[in-house]
C-alpha cells in the first residue's frame, strides 16, 4: 500500500481504447423498443392497416374527449381538422394560410406537409395521457379518421403502409414548406446564407417622430394577476397594483 504507479501521459490511442470500453452494443430488441420514429420518406413505418371506420370507433373512445368529436375542439389544444379545401388538396397549398383569409385557427391539417409526421406523433405521444399505448394498426386507423374528418380521405378508406405514399400526395399543405432561410445552422438544407432581416446602426435623429402604434390595453395589463406581487419589494421600482381594488 502506498507505492505510486506510473500512469503518465496515456497515448491518445490508449485513451481511445479505454473510452471504447464505455458503453456496449445495443441489442436488436432494444433498438426495436426505442427506434420508433417514422421519417418523411416513411422509413421506420411499421407494416399495418386501419380503416376510417375503425378509426372513428377509436377516436370516439380515446381522442374525442380532448379534441372534440370532429377534431374541432380547442379545449386542450388547437383544432386538428378544418380550414382545408379540395382545391388545397390539388395544389398542395392551403389558401386559408394566405394573409386576409380570415381563418380563425391554424389547424393541424392546414399545416402538416408530411403524413409521416402525423403517424409518428400519434404513435409516440397519443393519447396524451397514455402515450405509446396504440398498436400500429390503431395508428393507421385513427390517422385515416382524422384525414376523413378533414375531407381528405373518403369514409370507406383503409390506410396502410402500402398506400400511405398516395395519401401523402393528397395532403393539402404538402407544398407549403420552405427551407430557403438562414435560420438553420449548417448547410445541410441548402437554405440561404444571408439573414433576411437586418436592423439599422443609426445613432442619432434616426426617425422624424416617434408614434406609439400599439399600446397595451388596460384589460391586457390587468389580466396577469396583481403585478405588484410579481416584482421585488425593494429596488428602483415596484410592481404596479393591478388587483381588483386598484383597478376598481
Amino acid at each position: 500500500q502506498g507505492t505510486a504507479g506510473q500512469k503518465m501521459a496515456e497515448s491518445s490511442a490508449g485513451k481511445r481504447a479505454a473510452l471504447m470500453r464505455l458503453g456496449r452494443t445495443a441489442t436488436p430488441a432494444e433498438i426495436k423498443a426505442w427506434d420508433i420514429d417514422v421519417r418523411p420518406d416513411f422509413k421506420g413505418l411499421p407494416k399495418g392497416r386501419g380503416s376510417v371506420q375503425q378509426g372513428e370507433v377509436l377516436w370516439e373512445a380515446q381522442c374525442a374527449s380532448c379534441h372534440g368529436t370532429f377534431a374541432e375542439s380547442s379545449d386542450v389544444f388547437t383544432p386538428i381538422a378544418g380550414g382545408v379545401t379540395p382545391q388545397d388538396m390539388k395544389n398542395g397549398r392551403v389558401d386559408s394560410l394566405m394573409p386576409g383569409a380570415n381563418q380563425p385557427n391554424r389547424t393541424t391539417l392546414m399545416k402538416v406537409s408530411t403524413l409521416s409526421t402525423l403517424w409518428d406523433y400519434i404513435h409516440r405521444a397519443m393519447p396524451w395521457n397514455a402515450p405509446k399505448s396504440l398498436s400500429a394498426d390503431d395508428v393507421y386507423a385513427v390517422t385515416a379518421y382524422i384525414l376523413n374528418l378533414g375531407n381528405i380521405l373518403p369514409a370507406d378508406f383503409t390506410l396502410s403502409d402500402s398506400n400511405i405514399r398516395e395519401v401523402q400526395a393528397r395532403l393539402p399543405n404538402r407544398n407549403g414548406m420552405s427551407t430557403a432561410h438562414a435560420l438553420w445552422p449548417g448547410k445541410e438544407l441548402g437554405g440561404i446564407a444571408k439573414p433576411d432581416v437586418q436592423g439599422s446602426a443609426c445613432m442619432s435623429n434616426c426617425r422624424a417622430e416617434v408614434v406609439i402604434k400599439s399600446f397595451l390595453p388596460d384589460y391586457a395589463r390587468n389580466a396577469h394577476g396583481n403585478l405588484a406581487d410579481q416584482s421585488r419589494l425593494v429596488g428602483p421600482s415596484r410592481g404596479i397594483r393591478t388587483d381588483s381594488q386598484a383597478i376598481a
Partner: protein
Amino acid sequence: AAAAAGAGAVAAGQATAQEGAGDPNILNLPAHSKGLGQPVAARPYGLPSEFEKNLQRRESPGLTRVGQGSVSFCPLQGLFGIITPSGLHFERHHQGWWDIDPGKHRLMVNGSDASMLKRPMVFSMDELMRMPHVSRMHFIECGANTGMEWGNAAVPTVQYTHGMLSCSEFTGVPLRAILELCGVDFKRARFILAEGADGSSMTRTIPMSLIMSGEVLVAYGQNGEMLRPENGYPLRLVVPGVQGVSWVKYLRRIEVGDMPYGTKDETIHYVDLMPDGTHRQYTSIQEVKSVVTSPSGGQVLLQKGFHNITGLAWSGRGRIRRVDVSTDGGRNWRPARLEGPVLAKCLTRFNADFVWDGQAAIFQSRAVDETGQIQPTYADLRKVRASRSIYHNNAIQSWSLEENGEVKNVQV
C-alpha cells in the same frame, strides 16, 4: 378603467427625507442585531429569502390550456447578471415533467439504417459521466419567446414578453465524441434525430455541422449541479444558439441519418408562417436580440433622478459586439456598457445611465452580434416576415415611461 398608481402611491423604503433624530430602523436596533440567529445547515439545501417570493416562474393566463403542455416564464424583471437561478429557469413541457431515476436511464445511439454507423450503442449515466466533459455558459430561448407580441403589445411585463429565456453553465460530453465512439459515417449521416424519454418523446432534427463543431453537448450538469427535473434530469441535449425545443430533455436516443425527420415540432409547430402563406421549416437559430429588463413593463419608478437602465442581449450566431440604448423611442441611441464576461451564444448583461427628469420616455435596446447582425425594429421585421410567424420575434422592445412613473409595454 384603471387609475394608474403613480410613484407617490407606493410605500417605499427610502433613506431620504429623514426627520428628527433619525430613522427608527437605525435608532432602534433590529432583533437580528440583538439576538442569536439560525444554525448552519438549518437548510441543507438553501432557498431564497422569504422576502423574494414575488420572483416566481408563472404561466401567462390564456396562453395555454393545460399545465402539462404549457410554459412558465422566467421573472427577468428581477434578475441580475447572466446566470439564471435554476429554480427560476423557464419551463416548457409538452407532456409534463418527470423526476427520472438516473440509475435506470439509458442513452441509445443508432442509425436510420445500419450503414450509418459501425455500432449502435447503449450508455448508462455512469459511463457518460466518465467521459471527458466540458462546461459552457449558454442561453436557451424558446423559439416562441416574444411570440405573443408579433401583432401588437399584448402582455404587460418582461416576464411574459421575454421570459422564455434563461442562461446557465452546462456540463456534459460533446455529442461528437459519443458519435465517434459509435463509428458514425459523418459523410453520409448529415442529420441526427434527438429523442426524449418523456410521454411526448420529443424529437427534433439537429444539423451535423453544429455537432461537428463540438458545440452540441449531451449534458447532465447545470449551474454546478445536475440538471433540474423540469429541465431534463438526468440528460438533455444542449444546442447552443438554437431554439429551446431542440434541447431535447430526458434524452434517451440519438439517431443518425441522411435526411431531416419532419417531426411534429418541426412540421406542425415551430414552423414560421411567412406573408406568402408558406411556412419556413427547420428554423432554428435564435437571432440577435436584446431587451431592457429594468425599467420595464408593469414597474413604477419610485423617484426621479438617477436610474440604471439594465437588460440582456444575446445572439444564436455568436458573441454580442455592442448594445445601444435609446430613451426616446429610437430617435437617438447611445452605447451601453457590457458587463463581462461576454461569451458566445450566452446572455450578455448591459447597463446605461438614465437621469429621469419626470418627463415621459420610451426605453429601447438594440444589440449587434459579432457577425454584424443588428437587432431589427418591428417595422424592419414585419416588412419581411409580416406578423403571423409566431416564432423568432427578435424585434426591438419598447417600454413607455409615463409621467406618473408607470412603465408600459408599447410598440412604436
